[in-house]
């Protein structure tokens, strides 16, 4: 599903954030991208979402080489992905359900189907009773569960999670991992970037370890 073929990404000449990275991820896999801060985990995810393009090498997602994509096709590709961020990125002026519904609205889901889907994903992450709440009234763990609900609402084929437990305590981190595993069990390919050793131990997925922008065994 994802192919990195000798990918190098330099934000500044001569200072690669990723250097000659090659790997592939099969459909339905649960893959951890690990490494210390600054190892290039976020850059790797940003290459997959095509927020940035590779300086050298090829990034292929769903048989499409991202370096050659036009703006419209990038958006179409992103519709097949869900993204979870360390800082949740919930919009404070919308309620929990509006946050989840916004993405579906943007993707053109009709109102009836949208309501149904929002209710279902909020039920799934255990926050149906907080649908009318404002995000800032929720705890960090709850906010991240809303963010996961939002990412999974459009039924993406690929879920990208960038340090989703970075701001959470161990118990809340386990809850989040459970949700990601459930999504994986339902057939979603998961790419989880983290440096949380406890999470890495508990997840049991295949591991891509980055150090200084290079993949190491």
């Amino acid at each position, binding site marked *: 599903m994802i192919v990195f073929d000798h990918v190098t990404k330099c934000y500044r000449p001569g200072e690669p954030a990723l250097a000659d990275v090659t790997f592939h991820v099969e459909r339905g896999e649960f893959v951890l991208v690990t490494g210390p801060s600054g190892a290039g985990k976020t850059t790797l995810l940003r290459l997959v*979402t095509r*927020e940035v393009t590779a300086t050298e090498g090829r990034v292929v997602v769903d048989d499409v080489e991202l370096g050659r994509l036009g*703006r419209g096709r990038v*958006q*179409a*590709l*992103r*519709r*097949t*992905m*869900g*993204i979870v961020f360390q800082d949740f*990125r919930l*919009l404070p002026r919308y309620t929990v359900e509006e946050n989840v519904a*916004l*993405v579906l*609205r*943007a*993707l*053109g889901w*009709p*109102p009836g189907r949208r309501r149904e889907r929002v209710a279902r994903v909020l039920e799934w992450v255990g926050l149906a009773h907080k649908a009318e709440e404002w995000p800032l009234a929720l705890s960090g763990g709850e906010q991240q569960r809303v963010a996961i609900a939002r990412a999974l609402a*459009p039924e993406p084929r690929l879920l990208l999670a960038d340090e989703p437990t970075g701001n959470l305590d161990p118990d809340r981190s386990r809850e989040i991992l459970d949700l990601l595993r459930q999504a994986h069990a339902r057939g979603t390919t998961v790419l989880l970037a983290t440096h949380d050793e406890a999470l890495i131990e508990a997840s049991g997925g295949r591991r891509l370890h980055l150090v200084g922008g290079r993949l190491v065994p």
Partner: protein
Amino acid sequence: MRILLESLRAAVLDLLRRPLGALLATAAMTVAMCLLALFLALGTGARGLYERWSGQAALELFLAREAPSDAVERLAEELRGSPGVTRVEVIDPDRALAEFEEAFPDLGDVAAVLGENPFGGSIRVVPSRADEATVEALARRGRESGIVDSVRWDREWIGALARIGRLLGGFLAVGALVLVGAALVTVGAVVRLALDDKRDEVALLRLCGAPLSFVLLPLLLEGALLGALGAGIGLLLARIVRVAVLEETVGTPLEGILHLLLGPGVPPPWIGGLFVAGVLAGILAAALSAGRAALR
């Protein structure tokens, strides 16, 4: 249609979230459109006045006192047959005196005071075309006849007035354009503020694969709403000002000229055009200020 309604709702909510900015942008657009409409009303009135005056403008060929009447008739007949001539009248000295007394009744009985009629006869030619070549050809023909002393062309001073009017109109148009430019900048700034206010939302939507139309449509509608509101109020205000000025000057020395200039008002198709221009200006301002930023 659903997307349009949802975007319209988002645009209205965004405007209500920053009422002061929306008010400022609407006020700028209102002032610009109001002045533009008043300039147009003045321009329409001035053009009507010019056409009316210039339609009546005549070429006056003043005849020598000893001009034989058969030569005068021949010349008049020849001029009648010339291209670009609407009407030719032979004015005898008695009629010239009568016209003078009618135009200047305060000067009394001129003939009685002077002991004789001081006016000679003339041939009055009303050209259908006001182009210089036609008029010059008619005047030359008169001078060559040997019975014409001098030639006067009313249109010369009307033309001078028209040139002054065009110059003033140019200044007013530049002023109006500056105002519209300022309104565009204000509307653009308000829409840009709206975009800055929801930069996080736009970034998130772009990452989720939202089509550009979903991100841009509410911003463009915001510009359109500000433009429509400003243009609507501005045009209404211009009408109120015009009617008030006309009513307030009734019975004053300014009544005549103001009625001639402001009486006709802006033609209805132009009002519709100005309103559409206001809406388009709002959309343009929004697109210019927010479009590129939304694409990032």
